[in-house]
């Protein structure tokens, strides 16, 4: 197993029954796993999280993700325009 890596997954359902150890079912590309969401008080079903050793580290910010992709895309267009010149 790769210790540093955290994997993105989507929250399917949340189990709040133990307030000291809140858990969620998380879908990782079709595979569902139980993940502890204790450090993400505001997380909701449908959100994407990064999970590491069974614990959710953070919510993935979709707007920032799209912004990064937009910057990549801009670079791509820029380089293509450059090649045409």
């Amino acid at each position: 197993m790769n210790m540093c890596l955290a994997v993105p997954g989507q929250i399917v359902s949340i189990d709040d029954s133990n307030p000291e150890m809140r858990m969620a079912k998380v879908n990782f590309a079709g595979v569902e796993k139980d993940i502890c969401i204790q450090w993400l008080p505001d997380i909701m079903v449908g959100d994407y999280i990064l999970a590491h050793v069974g614990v959710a580290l953070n919510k993935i910010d979709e707007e920032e993700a799209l912004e990064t992709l937009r910057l990549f895309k801009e670079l791509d267009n820029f380089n293509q325009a450059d090649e045409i010149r």
Partner: protein
Amino acid sequence: MKFVDEYRDAGLVNSIASEIKKITTRQWNIMEICGGQTHSIVRYGLDELLPREITLIHGPGCPVCVTPLELIDRAIVIASLPGIIMTSYGDMLRVPGSSSDLLRVKASGGDVRMVYSPLDVLQIAEHNPGKQVVFFAVGFETTAPANAMIVTEARRRNLTNVSVLSAHVLVPPAIEAILSARDASVNAFLAAGHVCTVMGYTEYEPLAEKYNVPIVVTGFEPADILQGILMAVKELESGSHRVLNQYARAVTREGNLPAQRLIREVYQVVDRKWRGIGTIPSSGLDLNDNYAEFDAAKRFRVDTILASESEKCLAGKVLQGLIKPSSCPAFGTECSPDHPLGAPMVSSEGACAAYYRFRKSESHV
């Protein structure tokens, strides 16, 4: 998979690489800290897309690889005691100690188990009240808070048969050790994205300022890594040395505050020996006095076991970025993933294992 595939697009990767070529005018050495990033770089050949002027130096960012021999020996001694269930993450079980490894202890009858999560350790302890369950805890700041849950939960659930042998290490002191070395040659760093997911990046700001090095918090996919390099080169070429965040979809400046609180509650910062490098001041985490009852080194009285490292393995030089894995005389001959001399050949994040897997046929890299 969403948030993965789009960052592996070959067209994007190539256009970022050509942008880097366009703006590079001088020699720059850039170190990626994290072994996960090293793995991506070697696997996708990202270093081969870069202009000649840019050298990537692989950093010491594999917690399994830098765990000192004596901690592995202590784990082996504990695992060999009667009534023990020794648990750890996968790679740790195969790392050679002075004369054995944990999987050999298992083969000779020891109860050694691989776990995927700290929650597994708690479950094993609950199901085995007559046994002592020990967790060999490795990892950077990414993993430290999750592993801390073992002792906070053990206390809450009144589990007295759990303890932790801590080998936790911290990234910023390692960066400082690299930068303050006399032959320091690193011009910029890619900081490990997932460490910063937990810790944020305020700790890196004084380092960037003091040593005039840009530090770019970077993700793990090919396009992430190349964009991190592009941002670092832009800083270097313009004579600037800010801390920048390439991985904004997962990292905020302040990080995950509940996770940081848990680190402070459970651990104390200690000097730690790094395998192949030596002792780095204030670079490790041990359980603090409040949780000392869960400290396996104390519970099983192994904290006096010391060990010195093999001369044949050049892991120390690899971990410091002084040589590439393939320059080691033992690489691919005496040392391979099946018969590793050192930890970087064992761990899936280790630089030697990455070179063995993806570049074995090359005599010189």
